[in-house]
């Protein structure tokens, strides 16, 4: 074939690289701010937009989708072109991918602090943004697939398989988890309810980790480690096993986020089993990365880029060992709701994703700017700041987790909880929270050093916008050369590879979801569980909007210390009208599932105005503005209608009179507040709605018990 001349597009790589650095800085800053708020709650400033419940999703979204997301695109746009010996199929689509993604990030950064959220973790963005994400993601996928189609290299390197699986799986996850019924421009209700919603959410949440934070970065690992070490991957066969085993097993593991909850037991066990199996491919991949450096360890001493990669791959190994351990029920009993989970994800986030991104940047920026890195010394400084940052971040949180769990479950000889006041177990670990913030600060300072270093590198360099290359074109149609292996045609046909990946990842999801959705006995209904009153529904939306679920669970697990502390354990049938579910995943504050009727209305009122009034030492932000912010009762009808569409049995025509009930219930609460000496309360406020909701929580079953006793 004739040798063809073409140019690699470095411009798009540069743009994504800059975006990665910028959003990384923003995401880490927001994280540090959130971490400090846990120690100094007054830092939220007493305004709605900066409270922890809204800032925490901002941090997670910024780091996952803005920092790592742009990191993925940087690495993919660089390596894909070179591995396929061709320019990206369409510069226009590349640009749409870039600007679309940045617009989505900006939209997220605006809407999350404003309280527009679906409450589903890492899928908080509301429906118009969800649609935008789907479109931009498909643009990326189309551009990638078409680039593969017009490639000049017959074989698809394993990194590209990981990219393809990433594209197709993230698309499936995002679309299935985002089924929601819009009721207004920025408000929607999840299509699923309760247990089913939880299952779908954590099928998504877990696989967002798998297919957004892991598989694309594994692709990058398989490209950039050989590049940096200048030797091929240790075992290409192992990388193939790594790929297929990983994508086949990963998708099943989601239910390990719901151990000991109301999810059917069989689904929980499925999650545990598959999580344990995941050790095998994950460690195969990790060893493959590390062993690539065999005989080249001297380079690791000199090349900061390799140091970052080695720590990244090691962190991958640690997280993927820890993850399966956390999926064992008895261990999960400790980690779930404590800071262990937070420590775990930051080993992955700071170590694996962060360090791999940094390593890639140190290699990539000098390369496309045709120069040397400005300062190896500064890169080493960054390396140590980052590594210490991870240690100082994670260790205090492990400590905090064990301490808090030990306090939660400690009984005295007489059979009473030793620490019946949840707050005691929080104030105990505040020093650890402060240390964690120090760890975050160290890590952030390292990143700032890197940005300075790269800026100097860019200044001294000369950017190569279009990099010339030559390669022979592929023969237009493949000519059969006799006997060959069956997988070989698959590697030539990217679309087939994509379809098979899709089938492989769908199996696990289908096996988990179909029975949970179709088999009635999986969620036994409880006759006394009734739909929320319209005011409670408004209150629930306030709860969602404020992100209360970021710190409060609504899921009492069947442990003695939990039923003793909170009340009867949660049943799957109690959540059948919960669109979306609000089980939460972390208890920075106590569980709220049985909070209904536990305190008088006035307690909640005072607690929201200033938490420390009722709970001295509390780290909950103040929510004083709720007493003045009105709820929009014109949306009541739309909310009732939407809920009815989703299967909540409100009577026909109820939406027309629902506001009468709203006013009546508001008045009841205002009267009860008056009785306790709280006068001049505005009834039509978020405060009253939230109190109505909180007082309802978990009471359906309490009522049942009362009748039984009579």
């Amino acid at each position, binding site marked *: 074939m004739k040798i063809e001349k073409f140019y690699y597009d470095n411009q798009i790589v540069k743009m994504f690289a800059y975006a990665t650095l910028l959003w990384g800085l923003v995401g880490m800053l927001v994280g540090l701010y959130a971490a400090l708020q846990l120690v100094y709650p007054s830092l939220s400033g007493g305004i709605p937009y900066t409270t922890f419940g809204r800032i925490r999703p901002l941090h997670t979204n910024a780091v996952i989708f803005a920092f790592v997301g742009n990191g993925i695109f940087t690495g993919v746009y660089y390596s894909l072109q070179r591995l396929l010996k061709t320019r990206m199929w369409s510069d226009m689509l590349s640009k749409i991918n870039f600007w679309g993604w940045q617009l989505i990030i900006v939209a997220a950064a605006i809407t999350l602090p404003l309280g527009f959220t679906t409450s589903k973790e890492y899928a908080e963005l509301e429906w118009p943004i969800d649609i935008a994400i789907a479109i931009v993601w498909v643009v990326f996928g189309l551009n990638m697939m078409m680039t593969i189609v017009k490639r000049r290299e017959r*074989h698809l390197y394993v990194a590209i398989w990981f990219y393809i699986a990433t594209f197709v799986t993230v698309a499936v996850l995002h679309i299935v988890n985002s089924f929601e019924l819009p009721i207004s421009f920025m408000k929607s209700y999840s299509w699923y309810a309760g247990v089913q919603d939880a299952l779908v959410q954590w099928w998504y949440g877990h696989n967002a980790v798998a297919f957004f934070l892991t598989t694309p970065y594994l692709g990058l690992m398989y490209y950039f480690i050989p590049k940096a070490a200048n030797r*091929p991957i240790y075992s290409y066969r192992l990388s193939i096993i790594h790929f297929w*085993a990983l994508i086949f097993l990963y998708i099943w593991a989601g239910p390990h986020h719901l151990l000991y909850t109301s999810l059917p037991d069989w689904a929980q066990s499925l999650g545990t089993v598959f999580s344990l199996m995941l050790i095998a491919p994950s460690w195969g991949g990790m060893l493959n990365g590390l062993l690539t450096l065999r005989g080249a360890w001297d380079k690791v001493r000199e090349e900061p880029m390799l140091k970052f990669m080695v720590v990244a791959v090691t962190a991958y190994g640690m997280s993927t060992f820890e993850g399966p351990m956390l999926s064992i029920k008895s261990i999960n009993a400790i980690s779930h709701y404590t800071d262990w989970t937070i420590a775990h994800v930051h080993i992955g986030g700071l170590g694996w994703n962060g360090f791999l991104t940094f390593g890639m940047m140190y290699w990539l920026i000098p390369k496309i700017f045709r120069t040397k890195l400005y300062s190896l010394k500064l890169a080493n400084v960054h390396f140590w700041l980052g590594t210490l940052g991870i240690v100082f971040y994670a260790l205090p949180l492990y400590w905090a987790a064990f301490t808090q769990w030990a306090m939660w479950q400690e009984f005295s000889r007489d059979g009473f909880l030793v620490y019946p006041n949840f707050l005691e177990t929080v104030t105990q670990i505040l020093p650890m929270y402060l240390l964690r913030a120090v760890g975050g600060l160290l890590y952030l300072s390292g990143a700032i050093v890197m940005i300075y270093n790269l800026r100097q590198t860019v200044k001294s360099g000369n950017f190569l916008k279009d990099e*010339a290359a030559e390669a022979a074109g592929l023969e237009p149609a493949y000519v059969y050369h006799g006997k060959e*292996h069956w997988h070989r045609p698959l590697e030539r046909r990217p679309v087939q590879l994509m379809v098979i990946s899709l089938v492989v990842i769908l199996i696990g999801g289908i096996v988990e979801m179909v029975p949970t959705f179709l088999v009635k*006995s999986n969620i036994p209904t409880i006759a006394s569980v009734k739909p929320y009153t319209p005011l409670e529904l408004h209150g629930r939306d306030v709860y969602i909007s404020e992100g209360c679920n970021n710190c409060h669970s609504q899921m009492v697990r069947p442990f003695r210390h939990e039923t003793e502390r909170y009340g009867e354990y949660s049943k799957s049938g109690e959540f059948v009208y919960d669109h979306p579910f609000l089980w939460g995943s972390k208890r920075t504050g106590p569980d709220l599932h049985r909070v209904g009727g536990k305190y008088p209305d006035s307690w909640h009122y005072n607690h929201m105005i200033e938490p420390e009034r009722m709970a001295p030492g509390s780290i909950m932000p103040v929510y004083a503005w709720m007493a003045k912010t009105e709820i929009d009762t014109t949306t009541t009808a739309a909310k009732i209608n939407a809920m009815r569409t989703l299967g909540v049995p409100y009577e026909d025509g109820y939406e027309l009179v629902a506001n009468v009930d709203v006013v009546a219930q508001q008045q009841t609460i205002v009267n009860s507040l008056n009785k306790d000496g709280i006068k001049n309360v505005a009834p039509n406020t978020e405060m009253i709605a939230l109190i109505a909701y909180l007082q309802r929580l978990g009471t359906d079953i309490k009522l049942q018990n009362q009748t039984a006793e009579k």
Partner: protein
Amino acid sequence: MLKFIKHNMETIVGIEIFPLISFIIFFSFFIGLLIYVARLSKPYIDKAGALPLEEDTNSTTTQNPMP
């Protein structure tokens, strides 16, 4: 008390076959994968594994665009 979480799947007709099906799916998937990987030819493995390094080794990339 445990009635809420136990016996969830017992109502499914023919539930006994499920573990068998799962075993067959997984056993064949992984055995198939191992056979396939073991049978890959050495030249192909070497070629594919070296793909990331190609542009550096066989001078297909030039730093300065030729006129």
